[in-house]
C-alpha cells in the first residue's frame, strides 16, 4: 500500500500522544499494563502541514484542538469478516437436517 506520509492544512488525519508515562500510571494495575504508557489516538482536521512522526495540531469533530504526533493521513478501517471458521461451516447443514428429521418423525 502506498501510504501518504505528509498532510496538508485541512486534511483528515490521526494524531497520537502519550497521556501517562509508566511511572505516572495508576497504582493498582497488573504488571503488564503498568509497564506501558497510556497512549491516545484522536482524529481531526490538520491545522498545519506536517510529516508522519512530527507534531501537529488537529481540530476534532467537536471543535477541540488536540496536539500530538501525526500517525496517519486519511486513516481508514480494514477490519473484515475473514475466512469462515471450519468448526462452524457444517452447523447450518447439520441442524437443518435435524429439524427436518424431527418434523418428519411427527415431532
Amino acid at each position, binding site marked *: 500500500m502506498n501510504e501518504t506520509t505528509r498532510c496538508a492544512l485541512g486534511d483528515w488525519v490521526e494524531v497520537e500522544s502519550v*497521556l*501517562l*508515562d509508566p511511572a*505516572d*500510571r*495508576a*497504582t*493498582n*494495575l*497488573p504488571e*503488564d*499494563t503498568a509497564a*506501558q*504508557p*497510556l*497512549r*491516545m*489516538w*484522536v*482524529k*481531526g482536521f490538520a491545522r498545519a502541514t506536517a510529516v508522519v512522526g512530527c507534531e501537529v495540531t488537529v481540530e*476534532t*469533530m*467537536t*471543535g*477541540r484542538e488536540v496536539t500530538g504526533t501525526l500517525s496517519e493521513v486519511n486513516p481508514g*478501517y480494514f*477490519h*473484515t*469478516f*475473514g*475466512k*469462515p*471458521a471450519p*468448526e*462452524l461451516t457444517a*452447523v*447450518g447443514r447439520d*441442524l*437443518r437436517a*435435524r*429439524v427436518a*428429521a*424431527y*418434523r418428519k418423525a411427527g*415431532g
Partner: protein
Amino acid sequence: MAGKTEAILARKGEIMKRALGMDYAQFERSPIAFDYEAMMAAHGYSLEDIIRIQLAAGVGKTPLLELRNLTDLIRSYAEPGHGARLFVKDEAANMAGSFKDRRASISIHVAKEKGYAGVIAATSGNYGAAVSSQAARASLNCIIVQEAFDSRHVGQPEIIEKSRICEAFGAEVVQLTVGPELFSHMLELLDQTGYLAASLYSAFGISGIESLGWELAEEMTALTGAPPTHVVVTHAGGGNTTGTARGLRRAGATSTQVVSASVDLSGLHMASDTDFNRKSFTTGHTGFGVPFATWPDRADVPRNAARALRYMDRYLTVTQGEVFYVTEAMAKLEGLERGPSGNTAMAAAMSLARDLPRDATVVVQETEYTGAGKHHWAQLNFARANGVEVRAGDPTESVPGTSIVIPERPEQIRAKDFDMGKLRRSYVRNALAHAGEGYTPTSEDIEFLAADIHSDAESVEAIIAALKEA
C-alpha cells in the same frame, strides 16, 4: 500517580455534579443506603413519556419473533414433554443496531432539554454507536472515549468497528490503550467541554430500557395470551437486567423469571494489557457481570441506577464457543444474522428452554447488529491470530484466553448456574467495606441491602453475622 491525574480526580465530585445535571447527595441516607426509587424518579419522565421520546427518536417497537426452527431443534433432543417456545426481541432493528439506543435516546433528550452543547460517554461497545447516532439527530456534539488497543496498537475487530460506526455518525472518538485511567481522561474532557456525561449508568439511561421490558410483556400477551414465563438477558454492567425487569414489573409481569446470562471469562484480568486481546467478547461477560453485580457503585456515577442483583432470579454462564455456535445456528435456521455478544442470552436460553416444559415461553430480549469486525468469523480469526486455540469438541473443556471449544452438537450447549448466594454475600461484603471499618448497619440499611440483593432482612443479617465470624 501523576500530579495531573491527582488534580483532576480531586475535582471529580464537582465535575460530575455539573456533568450529570443532578446532585446525587440528595438521595443518600447513610454510608450504605440511598433512596433508589427517588433517584430513578428524579428525571420526572413517566414510562409513557419515555416511549413517546423514543418513538420520536426512531427507537423501540422492534419485532418480537418466534423462533420455531430453534424450538423444534431443542425439542428434538429435550426429554419428552420438554422444550419451551423460544422468542427473540430483535433489538438490532433500532437505529444504531442495538437496545443501547433506548438508553442513549433518553440521555440525549435530557442533554438537549437542559441545554448542554454535547455529550461524552466512555464505552467501547454498542452504546457508543447509540449515543453518536442520537446526538447526530439532536444536533449535539459527541465524544466517545474508548479503551481500544493493547500496547502494540492492536485492537479487537469488534472495537475497531465500533470506532468506525461512531465516527460514521460524526462523533469524535478518543481511542486509548488498556487501563482504568480512561476515567480521569473522561473527567478532563467533561471539564474542558462542559458536556453532559451520558453515563451508561444514569437513571435516565436505565429508565430508557424499561420500555423494552414493557413492550415484550405486552407483545407476548398479545401473541400467547400471557407474559413470558422466562426472560433471558445478556448481563454486563447490569443496565439490561435492571431496565428490562423494571419494565416487566410495570407491565404487571410479576411472575416472569428474570434470568441474566454472561459469557464465562473467568481467569482473565480486565485491566491486563496481555489479556485484553485474548478474549473474544468485549461485553456481556463475567469480567463485567460479576463485579458490577456485586458492587454496582463502581460505575462512573455516584450511585449506579443499574443494580442487577435487585432483579435477577438466576445467573447463567455460557462459554465463548457455545455463543459462536448459537450465532451460526441462528443465522442458518432463523435467517437472523446478528452480533455474537448479543447472542450470549440466546445460548443460555437454548439450554434453559431444553429443561422447561413445552408450554413455557422463553424470550431473549435483545439482538445486536453484526458486520465486518463485529462478526463471529472475525472474532474467531482474531482469536487464532492472537494465539488462542480454536477447536471443535466439548465446550466444558474451554479455558478463557487459552482455548475456544465450539460444540459439535447442540446437546453440548449447557449453561451453568452461577451461585446466587455467593453473589449476594460478595455484594454485602463490598457494601460493608465501603461503609468503613466499625460502621454498624441500621435497620434501614438492612432493608436497603435486602432489596438490593433481591432477598430478605433475615438473610442479610445471616450474611453479616457469617462475615463477622470469618
